[in-house]
């Protein structure tokens, strides 16, 4: 148990240590090594989370409770880590790693600030998945949120500031909604501990108390939906993602919206899942997001904006998976979080590569880059196929899980709708691919070269993960089955 204890503590402590060291070290030294240290932290998180996951399954551990303030007092456990948390932390680690790899090339100034903020973000996200009460959840959510605002704005471009400001305003509204929801719950129970709320609140016959609970549920779902960027709470998302540096957009699109938004929705589902209305709200939000996001994505001209709307659409998928309310649905959602993290990271890496080498991201001005940037084009095509759910890539399996989960829970219509929505995914990505990589080489692109160093590396690595995870997915499913999860 010592190793387990040490590791989970390290996941919260390491970002803080790196943050401190980054600011204590001489500026020159920090500039040189800080990014590599971040990559190491991310790698540590991936490796240790995978190890712990296997260990949990081997020894039959379902969750591990701990606290960081007063060891010795058993009753005061503020954090808990279960297997879903570990899986999400793997995803967090991967996207942070990708972001660092892109930052190595794209970020020239403000390296130190980037590292500071990245570590705060990592701490916030890890804290969110580990928290055991709604208030801690809210605190870490704020860490994630505020860090994101600064990260979008810190390069002091006009669009960056505008995007960040919009995010700030809309997100504040979301936070207000969330906090009001928490307040309504706190009014009744006097605590926000997960264990103490949920079923007990719904059991009561007192109609005014029930009304309070229902309002709280609606407010909380709305709050988290703003963070997840689900339609109609999504409008801040494309602006924010487009205006940020690519190393930042990959974080936002790849993981932040999932941890800050989707994870929150998972918590709400955990607590109030017995209320049928919650599932129906999820279904509606999910399907509307899936379709609207895709339709809007097909309409855009900016590479990153297309990717951002695609995120909206994919978040819809994940919410739809959650709406089944079953374990299989949550597993499907988690699997899609993973595949989405991978393929969206790939696409943003492609965006970074094109931005670095060509300088424009307007798809109408690009064309025929396939010959000049073979790795970028290839990885982009693989990511597209995975997004569209073509076997054997990992996107196919996670979508399949989602459809099966919906089917099994009796929502056959929604399962069919989820399948049909896949066609829209194909539409906007085919358009993107065709405009950027195929056809005639656009003017002035004769001297374009392949992405350099770490961007090229991360593109290849992510493609390998997409293919590899897809091929190994049947085994992963079997593993989950033997582990008794699904």
């Amino acid at each position, binding site marked *: 148990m010592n190793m387990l204890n040490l590791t989970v503590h390290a996941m919260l402590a390491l970002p803080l240590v790196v943050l401190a060291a980054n600011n204590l070290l001489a500026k020159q030294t920090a500039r040189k090594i800080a990014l590599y240290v971040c990559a190491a932290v991310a790698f540590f998180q991936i490796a240790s989370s995978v190890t712990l996951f296997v260990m949990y399954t081997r020894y039959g551990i379902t969750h591990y409770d701990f606290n960081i303030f007063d060891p010795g007092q058993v009753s005061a456990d503020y954090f808990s880590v279960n297997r879903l948390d570990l899986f999400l932390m793997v995803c967090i680690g991967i996207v942070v790693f990708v972001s660092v790899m892109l930052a190595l090339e794209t970020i020239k100034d403000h390296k130190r600030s980037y590292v500071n903020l990245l570590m705060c973000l990592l701490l916030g996200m890890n804290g969110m998945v580990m928290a055991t009460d709604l208030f801690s959840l809210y605190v870490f959510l704020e860490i994630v949120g505020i860090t994101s605002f600064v990260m979008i704005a810190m390069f002091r471009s006009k669009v960056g500031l505008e995007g960040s400001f919009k995010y700030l305003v809309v997100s504040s509204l979301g936070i207000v909604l969330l906090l009001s929801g928490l307040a309504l719950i706190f009014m009744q129970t006097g605590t926000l501990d997960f264990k103490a709320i949920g079923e007990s609140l719904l059991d009561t016959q007192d109609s005014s108390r029930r009304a309070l609970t229902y309002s709280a549920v609606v407010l909380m779902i709305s709050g988290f939906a703003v963070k997840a960027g*689900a339609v109609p709470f999504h409008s801040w998302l*494309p602006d924010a993602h487009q205006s940020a540096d690519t190393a930042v957009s990959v974080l936002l699109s790849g993981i932040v919206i999932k941890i800050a938004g989707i994870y929150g929705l998972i918590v709400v589902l955990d607590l109030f899942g017995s209320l049928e209305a919650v599932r129906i709200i999820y279904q*509606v939000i999910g399907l509307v997001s899936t379709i609207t996001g895709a339709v809007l994505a097909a309409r855009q001209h900016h590479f990153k904006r297309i990717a951002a709307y695609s995120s909206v659409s994919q978040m819809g998928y994940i919410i739809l998976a959650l709406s089944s309310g079953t374990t299989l649905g949550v597993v499907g959602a988690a699997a899609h979080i993973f595949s989405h993290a991978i393929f969206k990271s790939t696409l943003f890496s492609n965006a970074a590569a094109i931005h670095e080498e060509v300088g424009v991201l307007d798809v109408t001005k690009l064309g025929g880059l396939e010959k000049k940037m073979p790795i970028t084009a290839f990885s982009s095509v693989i990511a597209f196929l995975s997004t569209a759910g073509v076997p054997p890539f990992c996107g196919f399996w996670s979508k399949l899980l989602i459809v099966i989960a919906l089917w099994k829970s009796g929502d056959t219509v929604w399962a069919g709708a989820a399948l049909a929505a896949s066609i829209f995914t194909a539409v906007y990505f085919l358009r993107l691919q065709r405009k950027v990589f195929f056809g005639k080489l656009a003017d002035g692109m004769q001297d374009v070269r392949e992405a350099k160093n770490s961007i090229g590396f991360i593109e290849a690595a992510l493609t390998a993960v997409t293919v590899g995870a897809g091929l190994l997915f049947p085994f992963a499913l079997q593993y989950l089955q033997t582990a008794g999860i699904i």
Partner: protein
Amino acid sequence: MNAVFELLSTGHNLLLFTVGLPVIFAFAVWAAGKKDILRTAVTAVAGIVNLIFGCALYFAKAEIADTVKMTGFGLDIDILTDEFSALFIFLTAAAFSVIGIYCSAWLNSKKYAGLFMFYLFISLAMINGAFMCDSLGAMLFFWEGLLCTLFGMLLINNRENYKSAVKALTLSGIADLLMMLGIIITAYIGGSSNMSGLSGLEVKGAGIAGFACLMLGALGKSGCMPFHSWIPEAAGSAPAAFMAAFPGALEKLLGIYLGVRVMTQIYSVESGSAASIAVMTLGAVTLVCAVAMALIQKDMKKLLSYHAVSQVGYMVLGLGSALPVGIAGALFHMLNNVIYKSALFMIAGFMEKKLGTTDLRSFSGLFKKMPVTAVCFTVCGFSIAGVPGFNGFFSKELIFDAALESHCKLNYLFYALALVGAFMTAVSFLKMGRGAFSGKEQLPEKVKTADEKGLLLKLPIIVMSALCVVFGIFNSVAVDGWFACATGAEEKLGGWPHSALLVIISVCVLLLALADHIYGCKKTGKPINAADHIHYAPVLKQIYSAAEKGRFDPYNWINGIAQGFSFVCVKIEQGVSFVYDRAIPGIVKKTGDMLHRSDNGSLSRYLAGVLLGVAVAAVILLSKVL
């Protein structure tokens, strides 16, 4: 061997080593690409490794039955290798180890060598998989995989002229579709989709459709009519290595394997029943029509490809008789055909490499330049013509016997047709052999000299030719040993044929063929034109000319029907495409524009959106709760 069998004895390992390993080797040969020596070495090693597995599986004489779980949702593969399927895995491995080396050597200095060999190994994996599957659905998966590699191999080097590839895909695809239908019907009436769970279904009611579809699908794969016509067309453009491997060997093995399973295990077919007669008729028609077309061909590869179809006719005739002797004959003829037909295609490929053409009109009298090839050709030619003592003779005699013994009134007709086939086979091979190797030496115009260097090309041909003789002498090893598990025959069928009369008739037919050949030579002056008097005989001339124009080609019929059908469809299509091309994209685009305008960057709208969402969520909740 036992240790290897132990290793294979779980379903997982079996799949891994017989399907997974060829796939890995496929990537290895692809990587080797144009490095000729490396590629051939990898091919040889892979062939031997696969042969070791095949031997271990067959000679251990034990069944492996297992279920391999693929995912958590019932996508399992049921594996069953009984003696019969193990035999086919072994035979395929043996044929592949020889043909693979020839293919690799033939592809030397070709640009597409790596890709071709890649497809060939994937095909091996698919065939092994198909043999091992107990569940018909999983078998169909591997079966379709083979269709993909077939299409790929025909497309290689032929990107501009993809017609024959499309033709192959269409015809094989229809055959596969029929088989899929057959599987569905059979599984429905049999109550199981596993071969082990289906036995002795009756051919009546829906069973007729199930049996017919399954048989057509299986035999269509091996090139039986009416799914044959892509083979001669492919012969014109595909590499000779492809012809040796696919129509020559692998497809025959797979098609006959399933044919025998359907005839003897899944359905119970009595000799003399309607089903039996139907299959025999299919066989007889195939064998006569195809060999008649072979007779008039003047190109080695084309001539051989028609024979590849015609020989299937013999197998189907034997199979259709539903008698042990017929099934033994069909299986033995399949084995022999794999041996001599792949050898003949290899010889054609070898000569193409040396002379640049396989058109028999452009060369003759090559015996002195290519003695080994000539001898091998003679041996294989004797085998296919059924000269007593060679392997083809024994299998043909078994099939003749089966045709006569079948309990139907048409038995003499079937026997007579089989004899006509034998006659024309002998005539066409006399023509081809004498045309190519005897007489005055003549080389194609652009070729200065010819030799027969190239050990790796010659060796597989020699091995196969030697096997013709070996299986002629030791025919009972195969007939009474290997195939006994399928025929269930009690008496010995191997050895010298029992009926002296039949042998005498067969010999007379051969002598008649020789006489006809000599007559033809005298009349036209050249061995190559020796069959012209048949070609240009009254009535036959018109039939042949129609056949040459493709009037009898089912593919053209399909195309013709399709054209009429498509005219009707065009009108429907235009309506539908309006919906797809204009209406739906229009709606989507308009919606997109509308949504896009609403996301105009105005913060107040964004906030309004959020509030709208809250309201919607509240309404949903209220409507559920109240």
